[in-house]
């Protein structure tokens, strides 16, 4: 049985190099077809009537006028009389018409009577929430926290920290094109992070055979954790298609609906008490935390984040609010836990009058198994940002500060799992020498296609363009959903195993001709040769010609024999900011990230992932906020003017350093999507506190909040 391992560093032809993504030309030329771009003959446009109230009961619905409107082909009530709507945007009626404008007009013709009920949309001030909205708190205790806090001579810091609700704001909204190809079969083009599973999910909802739903998607315009399910609109639009005689129906959420209902990152707030000895040794942690992900339950963020203090007391309470439901947001719970934990740690360091870098290093063993990784990364990041030269005690102002513009530095550390998901693939070696990998995965823009091409080409010792990559279809060998940084480990392991098996089959085919046995052959730079003897070789094409017209096919799997991918990473980020204390505006000067992720397949797209996470991090730290109006229960910024994303001018200078080589490569491939997203909020918040001398407790760090914190002077 073959042995599966990654090639030694000096033998790698493609792995670890900077390789441009293979779908780049399609994306830059506008040729890449996203599901939103799919136009089908006779296609109808779907629309959904959504609740204008945060909490209301439907008293009556009359769709008769809408049904008679020009162009309207199908109308279906999703949630009818007596249904209790739980958030603004909750679905009521779906319809489809020949043009989008006709569909919009028809929505306006639907008459709904509502009975308004009381609502709660914000939970920053938990004390104001009605008892009915408060779930029973969960509690956890490690060690003897009460006794530990009572110890004499400790320095104790108490503070409040928080993260408001944000949304995913995928640029391609959620949605799909769906049609009944005949009376038994459905074809969908979704925007999905789970192409292998979405067909089965739709089939279950429609009570039809899973094999009768075909799902295909070439490209996806962002997901970030929000695009796993087929969603109510996927199901209802498919029903509308049936009502309309099988005609294709296109439905993609309008921007306001996308921001209101297609996913939020839960809020996270906490009152924290943390104690250390005078020399900075961490002793005990206590946190009273809460958060909301809408009407449903959510899990607690990991408090305290990364640091495993010997004595801990933690409570977490869910607050039910009338918001569109939460969905996994790139590294669920970690960024929020980082803001709260690292904020409290930095404040404690300030109270101890310690440099937080020294404070972190002093306690680094409390981070557990990756203490040495963090040490190495802290030292690298400090060098990149010039920590020792630029850091000053809190409020003293880093060099370059003026009377009104204060500069400061902040840091944070983070972790993530990123273990591989389950994945199958088929490898085909054709008689003409071409190679194909087929896998039911999806490329969220992280370089999935490119990774597969690199792994297969590397394994067969071929040039990249010999390998065709076919993904994005549920008729291909199934691969896991892309979430939680599980994709790269899953797909690269399966591709490696399948390729090695396929190569061995080819060896068996050509060995007799070469007067040897398969186990004596190797593939080197486009040739098959006797191991260590380049004089006894044949070209890849000559070897494949022995196959005739029947390709070799193998099935690669993850999990499988031998370990090619693992999980568990550490990262460090440091931010350098300037804060105008007259306007409250925070400006990014420099932001550095040091990250490990095991063996890197493509350095170029790996670095892009980290840059992207940092920029997303600047955005959620400074700008992003789902602003909900207490009085009406509506989102006040359901658009992109006021739901603000950072622009090119807002990011300052960014630097990324990937930990690679010895000590890292041996761990195999580990996912990278989430980890670098975890620290930005904490690092930037800490830099602002360092600059202005007071903590701005809640992110985003808007000008108003900076000014408020300054006015309070750190009190209250």
């Amino acid at each position, binding site marked *: 049985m073959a042995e599966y391992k990654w090639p030694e560093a000096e033998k790698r032809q493609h792995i670890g190099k900077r390789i441009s993504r293979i779908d780049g030309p399609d994306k830059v*030329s506008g040729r890449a077809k996203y599901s939103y771009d799919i136009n089908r003959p006779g296609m109808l446009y779907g629309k959904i009537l959504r609740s204008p109230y945060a909490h209301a009961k439907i008293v009556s619905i009359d769709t008769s006028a809408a049904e008679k409107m020009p162009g309207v082909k199908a109308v279906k009530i999703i949630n009818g009389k007596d249904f209790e709507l739980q958030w603004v945007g909750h679905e009521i009626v779906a319809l489809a018409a020949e043009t989008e404008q006709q569909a919009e007009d028809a929505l306006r013709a639907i008459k709904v009577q509502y009975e308004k009920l009381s609502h709660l949309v914000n939970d920053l001030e938990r004390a104001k929430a009605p008892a009915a909205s408060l779930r029973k708190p969960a509690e956890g205790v490690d060690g003897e926290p009460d006794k530990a806090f009572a110890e004499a001579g400790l320095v104790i810091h108490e503070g409040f920290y928080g993260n408001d609700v944000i949304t995913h704001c995928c640029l391609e909204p959620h949605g799909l094109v769906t049609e009944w190809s005949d009376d038994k079969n459905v074809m969908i083009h979704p925007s999905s992070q789970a192409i292998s599973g979405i067909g089965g999910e739709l089939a279950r909802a429609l009570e039809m055979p899973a094999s009768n739903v075909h799902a295909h998607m070439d490209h996806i*315009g962002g997901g970030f954790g929000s695009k796993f399910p087929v969603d109510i609109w996927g199901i209802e639009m498919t029903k509308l298609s049936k009502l309309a005689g099988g005609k294709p129906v296109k439905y993609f959420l309008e921007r306001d609906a996308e921001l209101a209902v297609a996913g939020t990152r839960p809020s996270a707030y906490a009152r924290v008490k943390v104690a250390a000895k005078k020399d900075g040794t961490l002793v005990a942690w206590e946190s009273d935390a809460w958060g909301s992900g809408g009407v449903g339950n959510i899990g607690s963020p990991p408090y305290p984040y990364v640091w495993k203090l010997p004595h801990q007391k933690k409570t977490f309470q869910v607050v039910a609010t009338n918001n569109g439901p939460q969905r996994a947001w790139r590294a669920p719970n970690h960024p929020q836990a980082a803001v709260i934990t690292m904020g409290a740690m930095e404040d404690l360091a300030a109270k101890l009058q310690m440099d937080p870098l020294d404070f972190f290093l002093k306690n680094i063993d409390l981070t557990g198994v990756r203490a040495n990784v963090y040490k190495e990364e802290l030292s690298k990041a400090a060098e990149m940002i010039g920590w020792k030269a630029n850091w000053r005690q809190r409020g003293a102002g880093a060099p370059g500060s003026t009377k009104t513009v204060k500069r400061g530095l902040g840091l944070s550390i983070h972790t993530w799992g990123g273990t591989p998901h389950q994945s199958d693939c088929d490898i085909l070696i054709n008689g003409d020498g071409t190679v194909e990998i087929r896998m039911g995965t999806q490329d969220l823009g992280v370089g999935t296609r490119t990774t597969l091409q690199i792994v297969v080409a590397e394994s067969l010792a071929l040039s990249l363009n010999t390998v065709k990559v076919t993904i994005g279809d549920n008729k291909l060998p199934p691969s896991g959903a892309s979430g939680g940084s599980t994709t790269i480990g899953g797909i690269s392991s399966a591709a490696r195993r399948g390729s090695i098996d396929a190569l061995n089959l080819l060896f068996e085919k050509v060995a007799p001709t070469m007067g040897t046995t398969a186990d004596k052959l190797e593939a080197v730079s486009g040739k098959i040769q006797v191991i260590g003897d380049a004089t006894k070789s044949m070209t890849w094409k000559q070897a494949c010609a022995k196959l005739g017209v029947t390709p070799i096919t193998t099935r690669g799997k993850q999990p499988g024999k031998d370990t090619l991918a693992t999980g568990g990473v550490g990262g460090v980020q440091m931010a350098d900011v300037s804060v105008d204390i007259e306007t409250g505006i925070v400006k990014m000067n420099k932001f550095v990230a040091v990250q490990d992720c095991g063996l890197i397949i493509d350095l170029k797209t790996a670095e892009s992932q980290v840059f992207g996470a940092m920029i997303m991090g600047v955005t959620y730290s400074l700008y992003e906020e789902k602003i909900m109006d207490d009085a009406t229960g509506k989102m006040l910024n359901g658009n992109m003017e006021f739901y603000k994303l950072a622009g090119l001018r807002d990011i300052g200078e960014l630097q990324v350093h990937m930990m690679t080589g010895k000590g890292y490569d041996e761990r195999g491939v580990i996912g990278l999507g989430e980890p670098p997203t975890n620290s930005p909020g904490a690092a930037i918040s800490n830099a602002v506190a360092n600059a202005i001398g007071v903590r701005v407790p809640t992110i985003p760090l808007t000008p108003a909040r900076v000014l408020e914190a300054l006015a309070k002077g750190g009190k209250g």
Partner: protein
Amino acid sequence: MSKSDERLIETTNDTSGVKIDPAVSRRNFLKGSGLALSLPLMAAETAEAAEPAVPIFGPEKVAITLTINGKPLKAAVEPRVTLLDCLRNDLDTTGAKRVCDRGTCGACTVQLNGKPVYACSVLAIEAQGHKITTVESLATGDTLHPVQKAFWDNDAQQCGFCTPGFVMACKSLLDKHPSPTDEQVKLGTGGNLCRCGTYVGIKAAIAQASAAMKKGGRA
């Protein structure tokens, strides 16, 4: 997050097919007022009071001809249909993307007479008689435009949904400023947003494309 004024169309009184009084142009009103694009109703009312003799089209579909990438293409759309929706839904030209649909994010950027515009903020009937250039026209077969090549080389795309708009904005920037200053880069890309965070690559791409285009690459 700030936006370049250069993005607004300057004047539209030379339409063919559909005649639009320049006084009624939403763009002219906006240009003069300096107001954001979020006040279309106000623009219409103000204009109506000043110019009662406004030609009326629709509300039924109107036959129009648009010059897209040098080719005249025919469509029948209601007057309220935007250039973006007409391109995407009626002409199957889907490079320009619909994201914010109200003139903020730039994913729908195309050129109108060589200048960048948000296709979501131009009506299809208004776009008649103008040269409309979309991202699809930049590459010739497999040969990418220097801006496109630079985006690819510098990994200035992840999910890629903002990329066509950014490519058009950057091409427009370099058409006007072949060697843009940092401030011109910020202004020229200030009307476009990316969610995946590809700005580091985009900055590098602009620098590479600027050098390549000066060396004799195609403008």
